[in-house]
């Protein structure tokens, strides 16, 4: 069931992305609405697919890289679609759509790892931990996209040609609001995720903090985002500096997400998750 839904989701995302890219080239409003509608449909199916996988696997479907990429693409698409309701940035469908398609494709070719069905993954704390971390990642990925768009539009404005890039990208003001909103929400969710993770670790593993590589990188990432939020709100580092920071902080996030999960040994790494036992007495 979840596999079928996965492929239908991929198809909807692909079609939605292609139509959004068509809108990017031709700038027809009809294409924009059609692409957006398809992405919404895809997101709905995606949610169903993940729910089905949860039911089928019995645990939150985020125990392997395959599943994590799946959830991450869901979070990114969700962040884009929801934020777009309030701050319409029409170009995002054509950017986030293909990214989600690629993430889903990558998830599809990765090996299926049998879900770990230990009690450790059924606690409410870990569910909160995983969901808020992933939703936070989606929003912060959006912040990074917004930052890249900001830098591009800034460059287009300074080129003084009012060319195709200038016309297609939204205003700096809107991108800045997008960055601020997604940064605030993403940072909040990430904080909740880290705290719930620490609480869970205390309950399950006996200590809040174990200097696991992923924990260390997550702390570094969190500190970077905290610094970014501080400089933005207090020093007024919006604009180019803020945009560069959002890209740099996202690079740290990717290291936390992939690097620490794949390359560095530790109990957060996907390969060792199976070894993780249930809550210790």
């Amino acid at each position: 069931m979840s596999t079928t839904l996965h492929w239908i989701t991929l198809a909807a995302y692909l079609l939605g992305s292609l139509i959004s890219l068509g809108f990017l080239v031709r700038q027809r409003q009809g294409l924009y609405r059609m692409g957006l509608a398809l992405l919404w449909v895809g997101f709905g199916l995606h949610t169903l697919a993940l729910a089905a996988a949860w039911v089928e696997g019995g645990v939150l479907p985020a125990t392997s890289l395959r599943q994590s990429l799946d959830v991450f693409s869901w979070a990114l698409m969700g962040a884009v679609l929801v934020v777009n309701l309030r701050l319409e940035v029409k170009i995002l469908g054509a950017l986030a759509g293909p990214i989600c398609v690629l993430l889903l494709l990558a998830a599809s070719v990765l090996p299926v790892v049998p879900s770990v069905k230990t009690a450790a993954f059924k606690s409410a704390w870990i569910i909160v931990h995983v969901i808020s971390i992933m939703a936070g990642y989606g929003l912060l990925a959006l912040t990074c996209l917004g930052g890249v768009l900001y830098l591009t539009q800034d460059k287009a404005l300074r080129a003084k040609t009012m060319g195709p890039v200038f016309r297609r990208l939204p205003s700096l003001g809107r991108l800045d609001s997008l960055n601020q909103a997604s940064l605030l929400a993403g940072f909040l969710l990430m904080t909740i995720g880290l705290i719930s993770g620490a609480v869970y670790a205390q309950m399950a593993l006996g200590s809040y903090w174990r200097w696991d590589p992923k924990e260390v990188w997550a702390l570094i990432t969190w500190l970077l985002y905290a610094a970014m939020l501080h400089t933005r709100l207090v020093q007024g580092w919006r604009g180019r500096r803020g945009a560069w920071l959002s890209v740099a902080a996202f690079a740290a996030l990717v290291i936390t997400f992939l690097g620490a999960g794949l390359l560095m040994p530790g109990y957060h790494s996907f390969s060792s998750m199976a070894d993780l036992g249930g809550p210790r007495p």
Partner: protein
Amino acid sequence: MKLQLIGLSHKTAPLEVRECLAPPPETVPGELHRIVELPGVREAVMVSTCNRVEVLAATEDNGGEAELTQWLCSGRGQAPELIAEHLYRYQGADAVRHLFRVASSLDSLVVGEPQILGQIKDAYRTATDAGTTRTVLNRLLHKTFQVAKRVRSETNIGGAAVSISFAAVELAKKIFDSLEGLSALVVGAGEMAELAVEHLMAQGVSKVQVANRTLERAVELARGWGGHAISLDELGAVLGEVDIVIASTGSPQAVITAKMARAAVKARRGRPLFFIDIAVPRDVESAVGELDGCYLYDIDDLTSVVEANRAGRAVEAGQAERIVAEEVVKFMSWLAGLDAVPTISALAAKAEEIRTAEMARTLKDLSELTPEQVAALDRLTQALVKKLVHDPIMFIKGASHNKSPDTLRQQLALVRRIFNLEENGGE
């Protein structure tokens, strides 16, 4: 009757020379009276804007030129020779063409800017109030307004200048998203700046501050926009409070320095600042455009933005020039026709005189005629005379439309000799 135009503009004279020539508005009627009192000068209009000073005069066929030049150059606080070397002089069709081009904004600093027509209308009103225009200039100026209107409606030449404001609005929208509630600062009081401010306000900019060298002008402008005036010394402090700056002073050096902009950006805590510099030479240091959070567009950037989006701009200008050329020919033929009018009326008058005299003599001998018969005879003679003079009149009219002034003059002289018309001046 000859048309003469003499003056200087941004194309021929530096600002210092233009400045010393531009008369204060209240002295213009007096100046106009002095011009028409010059020997050989019959009618005059004086156009004076920040970019040009021109005198248009209808003079006798021979003369007026030296007097006009001397009048324009002397007593202006500059050496007459210095002024004279910047002057241009046009006569006849060239003067008409120049006037049409100026009014159509083809000769403007910013081609297509719309204010010049209004300025020429004001100049004309001043001249009519002073009573220094008559047949020729009245007709010429009205024609000028028509030509300018025609150029504006049939070509897209006005699009360029309006587009500068339009481009400014588009750029502002790409920086701030919505202009609702933003505040603008106008430095210097130029026409393009006023136009840009009005466009920005139409888009929602709600607060306008005006800084100007003379505070009175700043106060006056600010009142029109419901804003308030500041002095140039306060610029640095105010920069931190506004979102859009439109600079258009005549200052030879930059009014807004990179240092001021940097301080403003700091005060604004990263909110962007948009500079529109339409002054020549520029008012905002170019280094400002490289600062984080500062976006600087000067007049060249804006026009190149406009031109980049307008492939057919040269075509517009060419089309406008064609309209001007066409209208010049029409007006010149009317002007030439003016010379033919006295001859035509003299011919018609002579024919009518002969007819009435002969009728009177004949009716004296034919006393038994009924009133109906008298009326019929009257109609007959009228028709005869009309048909006889019709062809010569058509010849004169045709000549006045198609021939050069010299040929026309010779042919008129011939007609006068053939019909033995007395000389009664050129009018």
